[in-house]
């Protein structure tokens, strides 16, 4: 519930900041991160409702990973082509996309399976982003295959010059797929090391199966050592620690043009997906924890926090309303976008048009 009479910024103590160990984030940065986290959370919670109301079907997403993802998205070198960072994401990275500038309505469009969904034209599950202008390649529902693509984008970045990095993200359970190991090998070919930032968001589970029950290797970062890949494990619930761990990791990849591994310990606040009912798990909530710190440090007061939430709710509701009026795909759209136009194809010079 938003409260009236929030304290205006200027009245607060000078230079409030949020500190972890000997690292800190300025009030301005905290406010920016917080706003992203809230907007992501509110959007995802609205989507969970949509999955129950029939406005959408399946939900899967990032509540519990907002702190880490917001810090990541804000530090991406955003742009198109090998001079910029490439992002090979999974399905819990909405906060990173929002940090990069994604409008919430675009997330809602995908959840509502609209033709206007800019990521998949109403074809893919929510959270399966794709954005060419930002080098966000299509998220595939197939776990971990992004790790065998990462060496390809990173190779082009290294060849191009500059400091573009390939950021590839997987879950803790997914690291059991051989593709994770392939990325270790391909990104350290002697003389051909590649600027790949291998991220794991470790929430301790793959659906119902605990990480601890299947993995003797506690952190994926340990697996890099045999390949000379440095790594770090960070508390993904702490935006301060996350911010600087990501900064260090990116700096290493950008400057050395070599791989780095970072594992963030995160929560999975609404369970695996709407298939498991999406009840609240009771795990530590990075947003609630951050807000306590923001209040304690006087970066924001309760009223200001409430305003952020209120604005996010309004934004999402407006989005849901508008999206409800947007067109669905039609029967004619089913074959669209199968093929790119080709001058050397006599059957499909344009798109796919059914059997030859």
């Amino acid at each position, binding site marked *: 519930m938003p409260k009236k009479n929030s304290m205006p910024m200027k009245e607060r103590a000078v230079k409030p900041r949020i500190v972890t160990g000997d690292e800190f984030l300025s009030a301005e940065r905290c406010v920016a991160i917080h706003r992203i986290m809230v907007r992501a959370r509110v959007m995802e919670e609205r989507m969970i409702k949509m999955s129950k109301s029939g406005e959408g*079907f*399946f939900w899967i997403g990032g509540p519990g990973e907002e702190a880490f993802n917001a810090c990541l998205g804000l530090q991406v070198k955003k742009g198109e082509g090998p001079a910029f960072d490439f992002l090979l994401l999974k399905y819990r990275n909405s906060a990173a996309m929002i940090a990069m500038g994604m409008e919430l309505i675009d997330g809602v469009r995908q959840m509502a*399976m*609209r033709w206007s969904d800019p990521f*998949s*034209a*109403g*074809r*893919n*599950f929510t959270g399966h982003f794709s954005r060419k202008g930002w080098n966000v390649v299509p998220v*595939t*529902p*197939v*776990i*971990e295959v992004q790790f065998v693509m990462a060496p390809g984008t990173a190779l082009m970045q290294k060849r191009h010059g500059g400091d573009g990095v390939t950021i590839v993200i997987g879950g803790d*359970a*997914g690291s*059991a*797929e*051989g593709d994770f190991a392939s990325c270790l090998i391909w990104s350290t070919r002697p003389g051909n090391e590649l600027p790949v930032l291998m991220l794991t968001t470790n929430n301790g589970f*793959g*659906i*119902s*199966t605990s990480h601890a*029950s*299947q*993995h003797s290797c506690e952190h994926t970062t340990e697996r890099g050592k045999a390949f000379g890949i440095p790594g770090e494990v960070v508390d993904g619930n702490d935006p301060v620690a996350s911010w600087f761990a990501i900064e260090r990791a990116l700096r290493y990849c950008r400057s050395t043009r070599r791989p780095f591994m970072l594992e963030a310990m995160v929560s999975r606040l609404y369970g695996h997906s709407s*298939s498991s009912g999406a009840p609240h798990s009771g795990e530590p909530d990075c947003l609630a924890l951050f807000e306590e710190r923001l209040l304690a440090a006087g970066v924001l007061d309760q009223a200001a926090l409430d305003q952020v939430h209120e604005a996010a709710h309004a934004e999402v509701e407006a989005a849901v309303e508008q999206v409800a009026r947007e067109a*669905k*795909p*039609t*029967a004619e*759209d*089913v*074959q669209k976008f*199968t093929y790119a136009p080709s001058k050397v194809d006599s059957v499909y010079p344009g798109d*796919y048009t*059914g*059997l030859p």
Partner: protein
Amino acid sequence: MATMVQAVRLALHYGEENLGVTDVFGQDVGPPLGGVFTATQGLKTAWNTPLDERGIVGTAMGIAYAGGRPMCEIQFCDYGFNTIDLLKVAGNQRWAAGGQWDMPIVLMTPSGSGIRGSLYHSHSFESWASRLAGWKIVMPSNPLDAYGLMLSAIADPNPVMVLLPKALLRLKGDKLIPGEPENADELKKMIDAPVGDRSRWQPRWPAIQEYFVPLGVASLVREGDDATVVSYGRTLPLCAQAADQLRQETGAAIDVLDLRSIFPYDWKAIRASVEKTGRILIVNEDTEVTNFGEHLLRRVVEELFYDLSVRPRVLFGKHLPGIGLNPVYEQNTVPQLGPIKEALAALVQEEA
């Protein structure tokens, strides 16, 4: 009556107790979940694996080599496409090694559309699977057949793939599994894990009986002289429904063959029906280029060409990269009741 997931669970239990099943395993197959469709809840040999399909298939092979009888699950057939080389090896090792080793593995995986699964929970697998020489492939369309085919899959000493139609997993059958309690609620209480904490839950298994649906035997679910329709899995009940409606509306009587075994398929049954009717429609929901139904059509053309009264027909899924999430996509990508009925009507009506 049991649902198909319950039938599968009962069959696996029967297999553990009577047919030597040593391991039921896969992603989320063991406690606490017992499978994303709950098909493996409460089974005494069920265990969870790392998220690694190649490890699952390979481990099943190793268990079989060492004398075990494993049943492994690929959570959705959509996620088995990185294991085709292993499936090939499982199917060829006996032939390659001059018959030394059996390979009694069962691989179970949900297949097909119908659960709003979007790109990667809507794939069909039977056309791929039918190309795996050395394997046997089955796909039930009702709980009793699921029970009987699973028992045969377990008893057979060769690799057998059990494709479970995603769309039909939660539907109840209309025939009791031998030994199944008559009251469905009672069955539920006995073998479905409760919602919430399951750590101390134990199933109470009904005294179910042996019941094999032999591999390679189709089931004639509707009978008639006017045409033949061959199908299996999700599209089978739609074919039966279409035939029923046509019968009522036009009096046309149609043989509806539930293939049940995709390989080996029941060629005798298909032949007998086509010799009788001279008209055939083959229906499945897999993509239409190099589709297993095209193989059946080829057999028909090869051996029964001069018995055909009219052009033989097929109805398959579109050759497209996937099935989209918005229902508009799914409805216009894979066969639904309407188009099946239209195709059947056209088949019956065409002048010979």
